[in-house]
């Protein structure tokens, strides 16, 4: 295809994510792009700031590998399990080095992306009054209602250098479609200077154009398309595979011990060429255990007006 943006994860991360970048990897419990996180580790990126509402296992891995020096976030943990121990060691003990935190709430983060995606210098929200968050984050400011109502709060735009967005299907040109929980993938993509779309599968333009309301991100803002089936493991992709809950429990054990993390990173990231190798190493049995049954959407008729 003439305007294909399809490339390898190695090439996309290598060319679009220089050291020191502010990187957004969103996906709220759903479509979390571990494949990109692992490639950032494999390429030993340095001094990245990770923007993510819910830094979870991928953030713990990036923190342990020394890839990230800061987090812009609103909730920190191993969802449904407990703590991110590598992240906590860095925050609580600067072990092995400090981790800079810029902390918001979920709506604050979503509002920051929305302002960034909309070309707005701030976004107003009814939050924070009476909370200590504005005290520890001076970028959260009180503003007046120009019509004389009670004051509210504002957050500044968030415009990451690059946003990495995992989707179920995309065209070679980067038009990306998502179903299930969309989180704030759309806003993080429009807010970013560069966009890497990682997809479960590349589909024809005809598939995308058969349902234009389903398109979350247009190719016009996409710089690279990477095909990485299974790239969200241990998180999930609606309709493709389930969340690997046992892994979230395993990680709780691994992340308590930096030696175990190092060993895990060596075995599952550094010693593997790419995510395809990770997928193979996980094995067919693990993948089949995560495979859902079918539940198709009822089709809609856009009509032929030729």
């Amino acid at each position, binding site marked *: 295809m003439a305007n294909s943006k399809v490339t390898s994860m190695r090439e996309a991360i290598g060319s679009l994510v220089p050291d020191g970048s502010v990187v957004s990897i969103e996906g709220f419990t759903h479509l979390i792009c571990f494949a990109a996180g692992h490639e950032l580790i494999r390429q030993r990126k340095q001094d990245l700031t990770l923007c993510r509402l819910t830094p979870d296992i991928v953030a713990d891995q990036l923190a342990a590998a020394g890839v990230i020096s800061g987090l812009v976030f609103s909730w920190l943990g191993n969802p449904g399990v407990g703590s991110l121990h590598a992240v906590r060691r860095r925050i609580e003990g600067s072990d092995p080095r400090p981790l800079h935190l810029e902390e918001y709430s979920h709506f604050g983060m979503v509002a920051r992306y929305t302002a960034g995606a909309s070309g707005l210098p701030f976004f107003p929200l009814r*939050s924070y009054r009476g909370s200590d968050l504005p005290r520890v984050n001076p970028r959260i400011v009180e503003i007046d209602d120009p019509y004389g109502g009670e004051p509210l709060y504002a957050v500044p735009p968030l415009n990451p250098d690059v946003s990495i967005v995992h989707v179920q299907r995309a065209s070679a040109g980067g038009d990306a479609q998502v179903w299930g929980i969309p989180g704030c993938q759309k806003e993080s993509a429009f807010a970013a200077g560069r966009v890497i779309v990682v997809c479960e599968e590349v589909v024809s333009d005809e598939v995308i154009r058969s349902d234009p309301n389903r398109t979350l991100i247009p190719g016009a803002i996409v710089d690279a398309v990477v095909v990485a089936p299974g790239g969200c493991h241990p998180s999930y992709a609606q309709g493709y595979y389930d969340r690997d809950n046992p892994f979230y429990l395993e990680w709780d054990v691994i992340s308590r011990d930096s030696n175990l993390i190092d060993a895990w990173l060596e075995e599952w990231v550094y010693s593997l060429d790419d995510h395809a190798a990770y997928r193979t190493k996980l094995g067919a049995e693990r993948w089949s255990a995560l495979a859902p049954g079918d539940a198709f959407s009822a089709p809609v008729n856009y009509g032929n007006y030729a």
Partner: protein
Amino acid sequence: MSITSTEMMVVEAARHLAGVRNCFVGIGIPNLACSLAKRTVAPDLELIYESGVVGADPARLPLSIGDPSLVVGARSVTSMFDLFSLYLQRGLIDVAFLGAAQVDRNGSINTTVLGRYEKPEVRLPGSGGAVEIALNADRVFIIVNQSPRTFVEKLDFVTSPGHVGQRTGRGGGPAVVVTQLGTYRFVEGEMTLSSLHPGVTRDQVFDATAWKMAVDEGVVETDSPGQDELLALRSLDPDRVYLK
């Protein structure tokens, strides 16, 4: 099987959802309480999750607020911007559940740090959507295990404000607190013991509270879970993931 304190908490929380329509659900105990209420006292309850799921009807016990089983068969799945803007901030949420690492007498909650923010002894998850929920939901239900370490005189950090002077916005703030010992309401903004779970004494409550807990003059004993409530509840979590 004897009734566990967790079962008591879930059943009691569910009872307070009688007649509620739009409920902002958390995972674990809140999810069980809402699912139980939907089968008992609140058949029209709509399960709404901060992940953007509205009107979930999960075919299995969800293990995260973004569990794929919450999406399948839901009424609507929206962006987080829409969920927080059009539902929560718009004032459509009747009841929302919050947990807490620390709670004070006004129902203010800390889920951010133990110790100093700049150099915490324990770094907790943070707000997530809690501060927006606390300020915009009509009523907030707090589910927490009660002890002198959780029911504190002064929070290390105010993540989500309760009934405090600065409070504004459309939300009504904390309305009900359910612990393993009892149920609490707020009288003029102060947490007040309203019922003691079966077998629990006032002294146990006082010992488990770092301040002098107010006691409603009409304090009663919480009804024990009925057979129907227990059967319905245990069928929701057959592997006792959360009912341990």
